[in-house]
């Protein structure tokens, strides 16, 4: 048996500081919102022409006077991703840009993806993203409240918040882009982290019924160990799938799979070191669950 409970305090301090650091990053550095949430234009292009490179593209765009333009390589040697804001809300801006690029590089450009998100739409998408995550957290809270006692819900929710905040904090730290698929990833992380926590909690409750005289500090450790191989196997198979998406799934899914990879790791960690320690700190005992069961 591994003595997970030996490090409860250390890891709690670590998690707390990670959450605080993440929050600081989120407040002071903020998130790198993509055009889905910030509005603007994205162009993915491919060209085998040797004249087309990051600096020539950047020069060309600067001449077009579009304000801040970001130009970078996108996966392949021949692929580029260009992003800029459409500050003056020009109507035919995409056509103008395409024409101007075709003119300077002699029609050697393949426009693989063009996206233009207006300010109204991006504000709505951001709002609905935030609502979706809040609703998801609230639903999970209600669900676990119905299934378990309040001490357990608190533990699970703390674990969820930890996972979401630290994942977003890491995105802020690394300056990775937040787009619609990241919201999908965060919601999936919420589901996954919850799932992991619930499996351990289920065992904790079972053991609480079985052993009246074992303290919760020991009991959580027993439960974690009993479910450990399941926790590991599921995390590993999920990570195998995600790493495969990350490496082979193409550039567009990179952010999504990376967020999920972080989330699965944090989710596994938090169900062991956050959810359970809350039970310990709240001094959950056999009485906690029996009292509730008598009521029913």
């Amino acid at each position, binding site marked *: 048996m591994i003595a997970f409970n030996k490090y409860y305090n250390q890891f709690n301090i670590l998690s707390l500081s990670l959450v605080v650091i993440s929050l600081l990053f989120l407040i002071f550095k903020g998130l790198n919102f993509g055009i889905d949430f910030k509005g603007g234009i994205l162009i993915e292009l491919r060209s085998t022409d040797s004249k087309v490179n990051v600096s020539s593209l950047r020069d060309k765009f600067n001449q077009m006077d579009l304000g801040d333009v970001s130009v970078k390589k996108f996966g392949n040697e021949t692929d580029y991703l260009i992003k800029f804001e459409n500050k003056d809300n020009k109507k035919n801006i995409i056509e103008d840009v395409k024409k101007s690029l075709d003119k300077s590089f002699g029609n050697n450009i393949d426009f693989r993806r063009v996206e233009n998100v207006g300010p109204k739409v991006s504000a709505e998408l951001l709002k609905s993203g935030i609502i979706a995550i809040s609703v998801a957290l609230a639903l999970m809270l209600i669900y676990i409240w119905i299934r378990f006692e309040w001490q357990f819900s608190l533990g699970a929710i703390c674990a969820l918040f930890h996972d979401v905040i630290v994942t977003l904090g890491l995105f802020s730290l690394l300056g990775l882009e937040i787009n619609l698929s990241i919201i999908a990833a965060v919601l999936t992380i919420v589901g996954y982290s919850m799932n992991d926590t619930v499996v351990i909690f289920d065992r904790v409750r079972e053991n609480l019924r079985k052993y009246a005289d074992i303290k919760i500090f020991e009991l959580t450790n027993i439960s974690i160990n*009993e479910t450990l191989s399941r926790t590991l196997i599921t995390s590993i198979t999920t990570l195998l799938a995600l790493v495969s998406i990350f490496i082979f799934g193409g550039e567009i899914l990179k952010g999504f799979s990376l967020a999920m990879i972080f989330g699965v790791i944090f989710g596994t960690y938090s169900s062991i070191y956050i959810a359970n320690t809350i039970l310990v700190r709240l001094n959950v005992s056999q009485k906690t669950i029996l009292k509730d069961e008598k009521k029913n």
Partner: protein
Amino acid sequence: MLYFSKLKIICILVVSLFLILIASSNLFKFDNIFLKRNINLGLDLQGGSYLLLEIDNKPVIEQKLQNLTITIRNYFKEKNIKLVNFKLQNEKVLFKVNENDKQNVLDVFNDEESEINPYYQRFKSHQLEIDEENNFLSVKFSKQGLVKLKTSSQEQALEIVRRRIDEVGTNEPNILRRGNDRILVELPGLDDPMRIKTLLGKTANLTFRFVSNNKEDSFGNEKLDYEDEEGSEFVSKRIILSGDNLLDAQPRMDSETNETVVTFNLDRVGAKRFGKATSTGIGRQLAIILDGKIISAPVIQDTIASGSGQITGGFTFQSATDLALLLRSGALPAPLNIIEERTVGPDLGQDSIDAGIIALIIGFVLVIFFIIVKYRIFGVITNVALIINLLLLVGVLTLFEATLTLPGIAGIILTVGMAVDANVLIFERIREELKNEKNRLIAFDSGYSKSKTAILDANITTLLAAIILFFMGSGPIKGFSITLGVGIFTTLFSVYFIAKLLTVLYISKNKNKEIVI
């Protein structure tokens, strides 16, 4: 209980085989109508354009209020109530009325039987709201009135948008309403939406009006610019003809001048008016105006009684074709703005499919390999269930002709990773039970029953996340939520029916041997 009745086994086999057959229709083309189903590929996989249009209802509201001003004035005139100082401000009609008549006017507007202010029984609301505002009475659209107005202009716009896109002849366009002032247009396979954007960007409000440089016009006049060249003219506000009177319009090459023109035919009313205008106005310039810009202003040479004519304006063949198309399909009730646009080229779509499939195969192989190493014979059972799970998932998606997107493929791969969870929970539980229980059958049985709550919890939490995503998500994200959500059901099916059936068969065949999980 570790027992499957014959009937149950048959049901499981029938459901599985049926869904697998449906799934296979993506690979083979069946002639059978029922099997002729395919998973639709989302725009991000097959390439195409997605346009979100917003109707700018402001001009419509202003126009309606303008008309309302006349209605209100005439209505009260008949009742000998004089309304004065009409003005239009902030989408409101303001006017003044004698203090004695004020209550009377308010009553007319607030009466449920009101002749000028329709009352919607269903919404318990009038079309218009009347208020007092420093000495003025103000009339504006109520919330419900505004909703009605927007819905009706959306309906009209939807029809016109559909006609214009149909005329261009793109492949299976998808045109849907969104909210009450937006229209979503999906154009599969279209990699350059420029032409469609240009066509949808025009209201196509066509009018024929006399040029009136000498300001004798009783209707008033306004200064309008020419469409292409520099310069402008004063044009009468009186409309001789509008696009509504047009029956047909076609681009044509004028054989005499060698110029591309647009010819048109008018309906009876239009022909009459055109004939009259051209007979009285010989020698005057008749301006042809599209969306507030003058296309051309030819001098009338002769009376045109035939009800057909032509528009010149230095067109190229393309621009003449487009103008004719716009005139044929009719004017939009209000201008449309493109507020979101996403276009994916066909080769990027194909690349995404390829990458998705490679990721799926590799992820799948890794998971299968890991599970076999971990569980040996029960790993094989898990993997068989996993493969069937995948086929069932594709089968269900095909059955409902769901749309598969790139995040949707990611959802399938993720399902592969997470689907083993339920079997792992069961097998781990059985391992534990085997430690204390001599009777293997009982150990297996309690392994299945004791792991049930954890498995249900795990799947319900994921399902909740998928449902929320489905309702908030757009396009690609919706595809993800669908595969994730459907994946949960196929996973439970494959775990509790397929894997369990195989497990039961295995242990009943090896009753006397040692079984190691």
